[in-house]
């Protein structure tokens, strides 16, 4: 398998060059993307970037990311390159600066090969809400790739790049990674800069890696993470808690069993828990009754933040401008033509939960519930080192299966969203297949700042398979 350390060794042994490797990735994209629809654009300067990487390596560059082709989700800014958040409203938009994570990757010598399809403005759990068409699952073309970083997950799964970047607001890295049989990681909130990511829900969003192995995800995260003064919520290194080894795993059985989990997912998970117990981990049945309210709180907090964030796309300073009789019509027509239905639905929901008379009942109440969920996690981490569950309640579902029922779609994030609500590090790791050959997974959440411990656990877990 072409992992990041393997590619690094091969490039330094001159088995092939970064240009050769990127050319192979481009070839794979040209062959398979017409059916998968995971890549929106291959950046025209990839060869220049790859040549620079080859030069750096010949001069002794030691960064493990040097020469690694990376595809980025279409909501992360790379200066002088198109970025659209998979929306018509930004169809012809060119980034005027680079995200901090992109600057870090470029400084290390990584090649930003292209941009990946996604749900419009990252709103969705299946990449069916892109203005540029549905992304298909490489394991079964009739099924979704998950979302919202569906394109990024497929790119890694299908050999379009070595690793990719996604963003995760409720599970948007981890759930598509799970559906496509790859690793997805979200850091503790504030440990990865959000500067240059097109915001959906600022208090929840984190950029993170999708990769083939836990080690690869850790290498990418090592490159993109860290304090950034350009991110107002960035956490300084010295404020991070000390890392501890993960030995005791909490399993909220009651919550897992009541959420309508697919039988094969549940059996696979139960077997995995036994396997971990045999491997010497202590398993503790924990009760987290408030955790189940995470998704309900999320569908108040997120639309509130969305309606505020997306008000800037009004056709005035950049992006699409639709014509109108007066200024109000310019705004309203621009949003009608530029935003897809799910985006408008969430903007309107946000306007509702923030409106006079409902603010206390919804938004303020959701903040109080969020606080309670954080406390519940803090209590749990007094007794366990991390919390284990499946990533998603089902394997990849059929295209169109949930598009008519927004709540059924939202429930895809039931196990991943608590980590965003509480700002905790979390990972999804491939864990076998169901009888139809669809990838299954496990999901681990640890205490704030225990990001390295999550990777250590992940690597040990891969060793057990």
């Amino acid at each position, binding site marked *: 398998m072409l992992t990041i350390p393997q590619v690094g060794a091969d490039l330094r042994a001159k088995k092939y060059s970064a240009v050769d490797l990127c050319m192979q990735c481009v070839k794979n994209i040209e062959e398979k993307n017409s059916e998968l629809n995971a890549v929106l654009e291959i950046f025209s300067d990839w060869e220049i970037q790859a040549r620079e990487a080859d030069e750096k390596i010949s001069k002794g560059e030691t960064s493990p990311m040097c020469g690694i082709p990376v595809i980025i989700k279409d909501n992360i800014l790379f200066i002088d390159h198109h970025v659209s958040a998979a929306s018509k409203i930004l169809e012809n938009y060119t980034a*005027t600066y680079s995200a901090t994570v992109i600057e870090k990757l470029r400084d290390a010598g990584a090649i930003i090969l292209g941009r990946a399809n996604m749900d419009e403005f990252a709103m969705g759990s299946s990449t069916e809400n892109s203005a540029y068409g549905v992304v298909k699952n490489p394991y079964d073309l009739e099924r979704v790739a998950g979302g919202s970083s569906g394109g990024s997950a497929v790119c890694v799964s299908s050999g379009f790049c070595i690793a990719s970047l996604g963003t995760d607001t409720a599970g948007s890295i981890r759930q598509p990674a799970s559906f496509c049989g790859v690793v997805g990681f979200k850091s503790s909130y504030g440990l990865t800069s959000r500067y240059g990511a097109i915001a959906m829900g600022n208090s929840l969003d984190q950029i993170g890696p999708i990769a083939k192995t836990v080690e690869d995800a850790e290498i990418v995260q090592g490159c993109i993470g860290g304090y950034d003064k350009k991110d107002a919520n960035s956490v300084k290194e010295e404020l991070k808690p000390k890392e501890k080894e993960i030995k005791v795993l909490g399993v909220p059985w009651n919550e897992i069993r009541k959420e309508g989990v697919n039988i094969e997912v549940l059996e696979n998970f139960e077997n995995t828990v036994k396997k971990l117990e045999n491997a010497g981990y202590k398993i503790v049945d924990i009760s987290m009754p408030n955790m189940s309210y995470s998704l309900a709180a999320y569908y108040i907090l997120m639309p509130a933040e969305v309606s505020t964030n997306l008000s800037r796309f009004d056709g005035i300073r950049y992006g699409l401008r639709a014509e109108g009789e007066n200024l109000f019509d310019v705004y309203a027509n621009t949003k009608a033509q530029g935003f897809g239905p799910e985006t*408008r639905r969430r903007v*309107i929901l*946000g306007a509702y939960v923030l409106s006079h008379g409902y603010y206390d009942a919804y938004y303020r109440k959701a903040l*109080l519930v969020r606080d309670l969920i954080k406390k519940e996690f803090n209590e749990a981490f007094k007794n366990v080192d991390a919390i284990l569950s499946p990533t998603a309640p089902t394997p990849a579902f059929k295209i169109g299966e949930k598009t008519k029922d927004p709540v059924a779609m939202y429930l895809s994030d039931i196990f991943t969203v608590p980590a965003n609500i509480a700002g905790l590090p979390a990972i999804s790791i491939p864990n076998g297949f169901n009888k139809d050959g669809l990838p299954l997974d496990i999901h681990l959440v640890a205490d704030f700042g225990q990001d390295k411990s999550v990777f250590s656990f992940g690597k040990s877990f891969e060793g057990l398979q």
Partner: protein
Amino acid sequence: MEKKDIEALAKLARVNLTEDEKTSFAQDMGSILAYVDRIREVATEDRPAEIGQVHNIFRDDMPKEYDVKQVENIKNQFPDRDGDYLKVKSIL
């Protein structure tokens, strides 16, 4: 939620909707609100919510020099321009 509520919210949010969307959004909003309403079951203390370890960091509001190319890139994003000016509909 009724169609007229959706119309009022759409106006607040400055978004035009088609007649079909107004009807379907009213239904969707009903099912979403029915789901999120469950947070009312949670007993919370009535005090301002804490945001945990993370808090806002402010910077001084100072003008910053940008290079000519970057300024031009920003101006190139204007949907309509007249030289260095951004063109918009008259406000009054």
